[in-house]
């Protein structure tokens, strides 16, 4: 099952997601990037039905860019999160999207923030959040070790603890994870944690 989790530290926010693309019992690929860079200072980690996940996050990304082009300034993280919730809420009673989202962002005025957005459009600003079966392990681990204002190194240690917990205790644990960070310098890849590398196909 898809594991997505994230936390807020001292002037940064980190999100981690598993990277397996699964269809029933088959693993299509294990390097699928589920954390989309929404704009220069925002990340969206999404889990849920694959089609909806890609379509909906791209839709949000394009609308966020459109706002920036039209108005000359980018949206704040709170505004982008509320826009996302509005879209999910409008679609909820027509044709709902089955996507759970963790939106992390950095604003100069309000610092780093993390928003938890359920597939039924429940929005809440959190310090740590998680979705999926992995949340049962990662949320408890974060509850135990999280402090506000952690440094990047401490936060990555905590993320690694969560990944270790998921790998050792979840029956169909995803083998690989991607970790991305957003701070005043922007949203970027931080690291991959791979225990199984994709086998490259032979050139024919």
């Amino acid at each position, binding site marked *: 099952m898809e594991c997505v989790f994230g936390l807020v530290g001292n002037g940064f926010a980190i999100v981690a997601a598993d990277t397996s693309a699964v269809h029933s019992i088959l693993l299509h690929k294990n390097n699928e990037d589920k954390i989309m860079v929404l704009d220069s200072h925002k990340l969206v980690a999404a889990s849920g039905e694959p089609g909806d996940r890609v379509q909906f996050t791209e839709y949000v990304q394009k609308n966020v860019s459109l706002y920036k082009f039209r108005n000359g300034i980018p949206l704040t993280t709170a505004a982008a999160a509320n826009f996302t*919730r509005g879209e999910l*809420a409008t679609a*909820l*009673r027509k044709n*709902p999207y*089955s996507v759970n989202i963790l939106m992390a962002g950095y604003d100069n005025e309000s610092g780093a923030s993390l928003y*938890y957005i*359920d597939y*039924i*459009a*429940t*929005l*809440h600003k*959190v310090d740590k*959040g998680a979705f999926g079966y992995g*949340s*049962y392990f990662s*949320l408890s681990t974060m509850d135990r070790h999280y402090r506000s204002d952690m440094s990047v190194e401490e936060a990555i240690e905590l993320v690694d603890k969560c990944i270790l917990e998921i790998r050792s205790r979840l029956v169909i644990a995803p083998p690989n994870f991607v970790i991305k960070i957003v701070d005043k310098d922007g949203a970027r890849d931080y690291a991959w944690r791979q225990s199984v590398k994709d086998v490259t196909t032979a050139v024919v």
Partner: protein
Amino acid sequence: EKEEVRLDFPPSHRRRLYLVLSLPSTFPDFSSVRKSSKLYSENPKFPMSIFEYNGSAVVAMVGKNCFAIASDRRLGVQLQTIATDFQRISKIHDRVFIGLSGLATDVQTLYQRLVFRHKLYQLREERDMKPETFASLVSAILYEKRFGPYLCQPVIAGLGDDNKPFICTMDSIGAKELAKDFVVSGTASESLYGACEAMYKPDMEAEELFETISQALLSSVDRDCLSGWGGHVYIVTPTEIKERILKGRMD
């Protein structure tokens, strides 16, 4: 695919009617909620009610020229707690508050719609809405969605023009229930009825009202696994609004 939802109708003489409805297929697909629910897999004869998905407890009480409105702070997804600082009570204007229990997404949507409608009213009428008027507005908005309702039960509390406190609650399709003493809603409503009935007395001053409503709230949510993690209490008098956070059993 049919979805079963329990609609709670307002109590008469403290007895409650339950109606199980089969809603048309245009209802949002919450079947994935049921399939992933621990309760469903263990006991398929008792479907999880959608009103119990997030967990909530809201209560309002009348005092002497003042009122109190309180809620719990837990935001959960069935058995898992997501956050312990969720705001269920919102200020519409200085003399009217609304507390919404039930499904959190509808709590947020409904709150946004009501604030919008009140702001429009303020622009047109150049004054704030009376609590009775606001309650009628909420009732109308809820009944608009009669066959695909917002899954919330609001609790409205306000001070009228003559500083007379007004409280009311309604079910998810807008059936108003006015009360002279207290109103409750949420997953902990049964416990809240009992606690409030025992602890309430008429014409309490603000400080005593605060003590009473806090004790009633905390003791009731302690008996409900889906609500709790502290309390949020607003005491509103004609001159001031006092907001307090309660620390209770954090579990």
